[in-house]
């Protein structure tokens, strides 16, 4: 074997610069062009819109508030994704559809309560009942999915659990289609949900503060559980190192079940709030919010609970402000069609360029 002279380690900063320039490949160039291209599009579009001045400040405020509203829903669903990933290192692909199941059951109860007039008479009680039912159904279905699709693969690190999850997602969607039919159902619209309300001098549709308030309350509650209770500490321990936690006497099985229950409850609340906002539900409604919530979870750094909350709100706001802000400026007709495009582009950009999320979390790097 011939002895080769090893290239000298660059010492000066100039030498280091040249050394790193040598390692650039065509792929790196293309990726930089991609980043630059998207940045340029966004900036040009934004400047153009602001110059055109189609929207006034109150418009932007409306968009922002709507973004916060839907962002709250995404955040709740994203919490489920992020908690399960933290514990099992597995994307629960079926989570969006689990949300749908809760929302569907909530729909039936809501319809019954609305028809009998109970909903108009006792808004808090009926909403609480609907949320409770939704949480219960979500929990049951999440536990079933965990038992069938995730538990057998707990020690196997292949693509099998993800594929099983995709299958479970389909089974859920189409079982619900078989059980409840494929028509789009309209969520009842009681009197107290219509109209606007004045808060701190601004006028908002009633739905928005209800949704934002409930979402924040739920998130606060979850945060307290995870930080202050024993089970929450156990969750954080298992997500950091499952074997060490087992050595400390923590039963991983119980913790995993608890995590799924928590995630499902959040999803249940999120599902009901989604109905409040969009008022329409059918068997396929779970898919898109599921993907967007996953994007939100990755945005915030997957495995990071405050990150998921932030990611959800961020995604909601960008999705709401984005089309009028930069797509309109680029003279794209019907920019609202491209709303999903923004979410997907954000998802791909985050996964490709910054898998540890905007806030940053070591989990994603470790995975790769």
């Amino acid at each position, binding site marked *: 074997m011939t002895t080769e002279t090893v290239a000298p380690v660059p010492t000066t900063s100039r030498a280091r610069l040249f050394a790193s320039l040598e390692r650039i*490949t065509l*792929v790196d160039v*293309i*990726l930089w062009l*991609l980043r630059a291209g998207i940045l340029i599009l966004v900036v040009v579009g934004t400047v153009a819109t602001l110059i055109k001045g189609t929207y006034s400040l109150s418009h932007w405020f409306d968009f922002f508030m709507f973004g916060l509203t839907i962002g709250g829903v995404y955040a709740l669903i994203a919490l489920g994704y992020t908690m399960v990933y933290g514990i099992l290192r*597995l*994307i629960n692909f079926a989570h969006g559809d689990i949300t749908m199941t809760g929302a569907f059951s909530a729909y*039936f109860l809501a319809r019954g309560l609305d028809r009998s007039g109970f909903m108009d008479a006792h808004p808090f009680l009926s909403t609480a009942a609907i949320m409770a039912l939704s949480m219960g159904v979500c929990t049951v279905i999440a536990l079933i999915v965990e038992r*069938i*699709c995730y538990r*057998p*693969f707990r*020690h*196997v*690190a*292949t*693509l*099998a659990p*993800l*594929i*099983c999850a*995709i*299958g*479970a*997602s*389909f*089974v*859920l*969607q*189409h*079982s619900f*289609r*078989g*059980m*409840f*039919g494929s028509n789009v159902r309209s969520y009842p619209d009681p009197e107290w949900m219509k109209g606007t309300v004045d808060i701190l001098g601004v006028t908002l549709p009633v739905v928005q503060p209800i949704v934002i308030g409930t979402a924040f309350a739920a998130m606060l509650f979850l945060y307290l559980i995870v930080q202050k209770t024993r089970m929450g500490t156990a969750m954080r321990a298992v997500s950091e190192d499952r074997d060490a936690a087992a050595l400390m006497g923590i039963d991983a099985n119980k913790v995993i079940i608890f995590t799924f229950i928590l995630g499902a409850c959040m999803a249940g609340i999120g599902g009901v709030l989604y109905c409040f906002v969009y008022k329409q539900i059918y068997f396929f409604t779970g898919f898109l919010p599921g*993907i967007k919530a*996953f*994007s939100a979870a*990755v945005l915030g750094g997957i495995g990071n609970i405050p990150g998921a909350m932030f990611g959800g709100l961020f995604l909601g706001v960008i999705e709401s402000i984005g089309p009028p802000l930069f797509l309109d400026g680029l003279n*794209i*007709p*019907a920019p609202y*069609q*491209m709303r*999903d*495009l923004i979410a*997907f*582009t954000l*998802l*791909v950009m985050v*996964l*490709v360029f910054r*898998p540890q999320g905007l806030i940053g979390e070591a989990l*994603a790097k470790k*995975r*790769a």
Partner: protein
Amino acid sequence: MAFEVVASSRVDTRKTTSWGYVRSAGFQIGLILLFLAMVGILSMFNARPIIVGYLTLGYATLGILFLTAGIMVARARAFPDVTRTFLGGMLAGTIAAAMLAVIPAVMSVVNLRFIFVALHKPLYDMLTFTFASPVVGIACLIVLGAALGAAGVLLMLLPERIGGPLSAALIATGLAGLFQELVRPVLASSWATKWLHDLLYTWTGMHLQGAITIFVITGAVSLLWVLNRDRARAEWNTLPPTTRRNIRWGYLALAAIAAVLFPLYAGNFIGQVLLMVGLFMLMGMGLNLEVGLAGLLDLGFVAFYAVGAYMTALLMADSPFAFAQLPFWIAMPIAVLTATAVGGLFGVPVLNVRGDYLAVATLGLGEIARVIVLSDAAAPVLAGAAGILQIPRPELFGFEFNTPVSLFYLTLVASLVAAYFAWRLQDSRLGRAWTAIRDDEDVAQALGINLIQVKLLAYALGAAFAGLAGSIFAVMLGSIYPHSFQLIISINILALIIVGGMGSLPGVAVGSLVLIGLPEMLREFGEFRFLFYGLAIVAVMRVKPEGLWPSAAKRREIALDQETMAEQQALKSRAG
């Protein structure tokens, strides 16, 4: 290695009490029955006759599931003696039937139709056997469950000479009745076999004498086989290996010729079904390169299909959006090349993304492509939601491919060419590089494999197959719309590959036949097609992760694992 054991075979480690197992078996079957009833599958199956006037698919499903309860008890060898096994089987069947009986019991008291649309009168009639009194009907159901549970045990306990032919005869009769749409056109097409057709079938399906005929014939043939099997095997083993191989190839060739000539006699409906199977098989071969060989889970695959279809449309159609009106044989290669280029481009951003994240990233890219194609912004070029119409059929020396059967033969030729490419790629240096990066990317890179080139080639070549399929799809339909290119197609193809076996070419064919052919043939499966796919994916992943026809490499791995397991068992029993 222990991981492989868990993933590739079912390790039964739980030891429950015998009666506990009976309860669990009955409970599982009961759950399945409840699910089928509430989702509406049972009542839909009930509309399809197997033997006209006597047996429908719905009752057959009930029967098979009750039998399964008994079979599960017998196979688990829960009891040492025969009487208790029979009792166990009966109990399991009774439990399952009792669970199912909850539905008609509840339905007779309260009407839940406004919530669960499947709980309607046909289901109620089916489960109570159309008796006026629900109590009698439910009692019948429970008795049926018990009886068939015991029958299942009987089937397992019978000596092979009787049990084998009996099972074979039952299965053959069932299949002949179920697939009557497949068999009847073939039998009716030529007057030589028309007498057979009239003997077996009527307008709507198989009638009783046909069923009995098939039952008796299959039973007799199966009995003959069971009685003479050992002697036949001994004779077979005395033949020299070359003769054996020649005979095997001979059978294979006969089967292939029969399969190829079948659509000519089977009519346009079968031709259409086989055409869809062929298209999905083409796409499956492409995704197989990416997922099965290279381990790159690509959920945005439908985008390449769309590129192939749109490029062909834009080069051929008689529409204001088209660039030119080229013949198919020029447009198709251009479409395939475009798809290949797009595939390579598509792969560039996701080169560093791995595992689950890759699946979601490619899903995002695929959805981005779909949204752009569907949007009004791209409509001036891509026609938006209105689609591109008036795509002409391919023509070859004056012969126009305008029937499903002719298009099927076109697809068949394309599939054979593609399969040849895929087969050679699999065993080439590139194919081995792909399997290396599937197993461990870092080690592969350390061994000198250029990850970028290899991954981009995987995406590009996989996209080429999809582009070809898209091309044929465009000329088959004559017009294309963005709604044909949804995420669900990518997942279909993924399901195909999983069910057939990842990385295995014959597996792709098996997967397509099962997952695409079956729902087309049985409309009832077709209604619940995606539910069926989801259940197939979960079932295969749980029970047989290597698929229905695993690749040779996978089979060797599994054999090795089983050997090691057996060795470990032997060591343990010797030590303990």
